[in-house]
């Protein structure tokens, strides 16, 4: 098992190298120039040349890539073109925000998605089944942008229950340790900040969770339906086990494999959806940051950011694979 995990982590190196080359090439064949965008209307040839010189953009491409790799070896992702901050510093500030939001969204998606899926499967063709599956269809097709604004209008403007945007109220002070605000609030025993952070994350997390929730619900339902028809379920029922034990101990565990795969994949989808959610809810994460970087051609941010996101993605896939073995001992990890 350990050998397997370490081998998988070693594979990260060629994966990330490949990602960096692809991103680098794509960046430099897309038209646009960060220096030109930085200087805007007032750019003169001399100023542009000087700025490119400072940014190392006048060097040939292979030299630029070489410099990038050389820095990377030292664990340095470079300095961003716009904010002149270390890319790593920016990631440290923003990545936790995105992960916190994505995890919250996936928890909501799994919790409700699996419950709805199970009920729909055990009560196939019931009213609940129809309603929840139509709901799932709606969930997949609803545009996040629209949904977010509607939530704001209902829950903030009309009902006044939840804050509109941001991660923390203006009057709340929180000592930041990990940048996961909920965690930081617990660590510093700042309960006011904890409540405020939880209140702030509800609306964006629910918005972001709609698509994964719908997919998880449908996946759970179909997987459960298949398992419930198996002979061993009949055996279990015949033994006189309670419905609860049969559904959860015997059926659900076997049905979870495809669900776990789906959730793993949905993590990537949710990271992508985070760009929109973060923009609407003024959530200071990597989604909006990467989007802006693409618009501004901030090569350093795009390169550093994609590397980190790719790494997270690989690690999550690994977690999913390991989870298989935990859920179903018949699958041994080799």
């Amino acid at each position: 098992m350990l050998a397997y995990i370490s081998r998988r982590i070693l594979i990260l190196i060629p994966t990330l190298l490949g990602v960096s080359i692809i991103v680098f090439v794509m960046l430099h064949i897309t038209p646009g120039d960060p220096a030109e965008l930085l200087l805007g209307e007032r750019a003169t040839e001399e100023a542009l040349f000087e700025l490119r010189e400072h940014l190392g953009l006048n060097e040939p491409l292979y030299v630029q890539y070489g410099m990038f790799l050389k820095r990377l070896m030292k664990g340095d992702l470079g300095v961003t073109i716009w904010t002149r901050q270390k890319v790593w510093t920016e990631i440290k500030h923003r990545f936790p925000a995105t992960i916190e939001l994505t995890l919250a969204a996936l928890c909501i998606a799994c919790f409700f998605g699996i419950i709805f899926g199970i009920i729909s499967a055990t009560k196939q063709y019931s009213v609940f089944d129809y309603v929840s599956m139509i709901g799932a269809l709606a969930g997949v097709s609803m545009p996040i942008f629209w949904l977010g604004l509607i939530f704001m209008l209902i829950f903030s403007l009309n009902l006044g229950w939840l804050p509109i945007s941001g991660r923390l109220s203006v009057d709340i002070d929180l000592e930041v340790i990990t940048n996961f605000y909920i965690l930081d609030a617990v660590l510093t025993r700042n309960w006011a900040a904890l409540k405020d952070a939880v209140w702030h994350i509800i609306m964006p997390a629910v918005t972001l969770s709609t698509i994964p929730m719908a997919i998880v619900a449908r996946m759970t339902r179909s997987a459960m339906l298949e398992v419930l028809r198996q002979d061993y379920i009949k055996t279990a029922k015949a033994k006189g086990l309670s419905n609860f034990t049969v559904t959860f101990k015997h059926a659900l565990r076997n049905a979870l494999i495809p669900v776990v795969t789906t959730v793993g994949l949905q993590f990537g989808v949710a990271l992508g959806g985070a760009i929109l959610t973060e923009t609407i809810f003024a959530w200071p994460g990597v989604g909006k940051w990467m989007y802006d970087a693409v618009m501004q051609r901030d090569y350093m941010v795009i390169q550093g950011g994609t590397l980190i996101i790719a790494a997270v993605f690989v690690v999550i896939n690994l977690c999913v694979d390991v989870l298989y073995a935990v859920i179903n001992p018949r699958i041994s990890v080799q």
Partner: protein
Amino acid sequence: MKKGKFLFKFWLVGLATALVIFGITSCGEKKEEAKVEEAKVIEKTTLVFGRGGDSVGLDPAYETDGNSFMVCDNIYEALVFYADESTALEPGLAESWDISPDGKTYTFHLRKGVKFHDGTPFNADAVVFSIGRMMKERNVKFVGKGWEIPAQERPPEYWVSMEMDKTVGSIEAVDENTVVFKLKRVEAPFMANMGMDFADIISPTAFMKNPKEFLRNPVGTGPFKFVKWVTADRIILEKNENYWDKSGGPYLDKVVFRSIPENSVRFLELKTGNIHICQFPNPADIELAKKDSNLILPTQPGMNIGYLSFNHTKEPWKSNLNLRKAIAHAIDRKAIVDNIYQGMGQTAKNPIPPTMWGYNQNVPGFKYDPELAKKFLSDAGYPDGKGLGEITLWSMPVPRPYNPDGRKIGEAMSADLAKVGIKAKIVTFEWGTYLKRQREQPEDMDLFQLGWTGDNGDPDNFLAVLFDGLASSSIRTQWHNEKYHELMVNGRQTVDQAKRTKIYEEALQLIYDECPVISIAHSTVIWPSLKNVTNFKLHPTGSVRLKNVSLK
């Protein structure tokens, strides 16, 4: 029945989880109430400013964007200030200044007893340090022991684009409170430049402590002190209790600049009272704001111009004046302002805003008159557009303060031109490519949209940098007119403002007569605010100054 039981159990688990979460958070609630009460006693007034994006950095010498400058405006100060709602110059950190008769030596007499937020005294050496660090060749002299100024991280963009290296020869501290700038050439806009953000004075000791991190730990002499920056979220400032000017503010105890990227969400935050000022709302929301009795609408004509220009490096545009005039009369600029600027703008007759000195009231401006356009077109040798072929109309891909939607404006213009028989194809690129290719004046460009936001309120900053093609090949409108060039050079080398006004009025008349460019519109800035925000004035340069603002 059994199924029901299991479901019940499942919901019970869910309910229990919810209760635990609620328990944790509500047990915090009580403490929070106490805290809030406590906070209310300490924090009297906090103003929250809602804006579209985060600051890039807070070192005034290196920033180029409005979101950075608006924070700098409250932390730092320059030797001279712009007046409340204009760019008229007022004494700032310099109490007074003398200009030598030849216009090449400027002596600034500094305000005494001013201190930076970190306690460093403000003096002549601080000025020499702040401005001197932007010079390519550091020809500076300190009166005290001074500092070894570190090398530049990258070119200071505004210093470069205002051509300060070609202007400033040396900066010398004569005594504790006197600084002398010796210029290489007579440069009339020099004083106006010294009021710009890049010329703000920073604390040398704070900068030297960690030059690379200064942009995140700014220290100036301004009415507010920097407290904290939460990346992409908020920047917090607090009142500078020791501010030197005791005659007015600062009145606010705390200022928070919040980034809320989505315009409609930012406006919602304003409506619910979570922010006090909402920058750049959607034009549609302005109508809502007008109806809301809790909101006021501070308004200011922006110091900008959106224009349509010709490719003067190629025929027929270069020498066919009638053709240029035909286009000018064919375009319905009022319709563009009404429909695309949605009322947040005014049609332009000069390429400088009407609030600026030198504006020529006597220029009639081009009337929308398709018949007259047709006449000019046939005088130009292209009756009903015959022989002209399809021309290209470059339209901007991004909204800018002076142009809310380049593509839509392009479509409107193209439709107007079609009415007089000119076929115009809309061309657009990614913004960086647009700027780059435009500067190259390529063969496939006939007409192009562009614009400008003024820096220092000097007409030279519009008329010379935009249209005097003889000055440099980097000028975006490559109009080569000897007389105009001469006027621009004279304007720069004349220090007396009354004389300069005459010069620029003449230049504007020349632009009307020769029609090298068609001025479209000046946009108007409207930032809705809560009713209790008192004394908030928008500045034509777009800077945000909160010194005299208070909450009722």
